[in-house]
């Protein structure tokens, strides 16, 4: 496990894609990667993390301020600012099983 410094992003607003679930997050370690942040947010928000076959679902974090999807390898301290809003957006399939 990596260690991260204690100085973090002051406050983030995070929501799921439908806006049905939200969370405020404070003190996000700046050295964490966006991928690590998203992984922990999924757990905190009790969002589904696997598809029906048990494979991990892919979620993108959309940064509203810049209107773009963050890359998982980006560093929190480089990509995010206090007050930012993130939307967690899955790539997910309907259909199948026929």
């Amino acid at each position, binding site marked *: 496990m990596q260690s991260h410094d204690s100085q973090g992003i002051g406050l983030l607003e995070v929501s799921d894609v439908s806006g*049905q679930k*939200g969370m405020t997050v404070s003190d996000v370690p700046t050295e964490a990667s966006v991928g690590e942040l998203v992984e*922990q947010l999924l757990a905190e928000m009790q969002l*589904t993390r696997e598809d029906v076959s048990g494979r991990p*679902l892919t979620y993108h974090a959309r940064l509203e301020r810049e209107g773009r999807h963050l890359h998982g390898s980006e560093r929190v301290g480089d990509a995010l600012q206090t007050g930012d809003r993130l939307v967690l957006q899955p790539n*997910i399939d*309907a*259909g*199948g099983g026929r």
Partner: protein
Amino acid sequence: MTVPRYSYAVHVLREDDSAVAQVPIEVDWEPAREWMRFLALRRGHAPAEAFALDSAIEPLWHAERGAPYLAGFRARVAADGSAELWHDFKTGYFAAPARAVSARLVAEGTLREGDRIRCLPVAFPRDVEPASAAPTVRLNARPAAPSMPVHAGALGDLLGRSVAHGRAQDGDDTPLFVPRTVLDEAGALAGAAEAKETGGILVGHLHRDAAVAQVFAEVTAQIPATHAEADRARLSFTAQVWTDVRAALALRDRGEIMLGWWHSHPVREWCKDCPEEKRPDCALAADFFSEHDRALHRTVFPRAYSVALVVNDVALDAPTFSLFGWRSGLIAPRGFHVLEPDRPEAACTGVSNAAATARTDHVR
């Protein structure tokens, strides 16, 4: 509220009651919790309060077999200063993990395909919480109230301007109203997609009728998922789809929320090689909701009022519509109301009161 915690498992028996295995299961309690939040909303709690409620869950023991065998479980919520609200969930809630267990036992060779078995959910008290993996990133996170306006409304007004469609509505279902134009649009898009699936997002408003302690949903539009990736039996809602929908909602600026989603089943393509006389009775032609469909609904639309509309693009006829939604924490086929543009208004208060009294939540 102090409630003993339990570990849950499925006890698998053969027809003669001989034991096959007892397999621990992880139960997804979130749909049950969402159901309780919705019941609280229906009972008059403010959305910010209702959607933040947590539930205490305790087993209900089987009347004849006794503990550890379950007849179901009870979920309770108690908001500050309010009466306690509870709801009893039946063992059907454990059907999905039980299916996974039986599939695993077949894969391991413990069972053979076609063996007749019974799966009984069981629960055991546990003193120690199971260790969870240490988080890579420690977050100071708090649930935030979702932006979920619930408008005052009169259920009878919409009932008077609509006609019931599909299955009879269960008393626990959230009444849902869909304009005929939305169905027409979805049907046309399904037809235009021909052999491929297509879909979109249903947007609209939540209303509460305090007179009958009921929350109901009114769809106002469908937003096509133009960036979805599709083939004849799959529809991928990509991240770009969600970005488009959120942008469309912002542009519309009507305070609408995502109430659910729709997608098509190109049944005419699936059944093109079937004999014509068998097509009307084909299981794929109506009320078919795949495991992938269920997973999408659970992932993106976990709130208890959320719905999924299926457009069955059947051969030889106009498209038909099936609706699925949450009922006691499970996804079930259900009915809805079609808002007809030229239907004269009629008084339907008696209907709404009847629906309210048929529900299964309790307060004390």
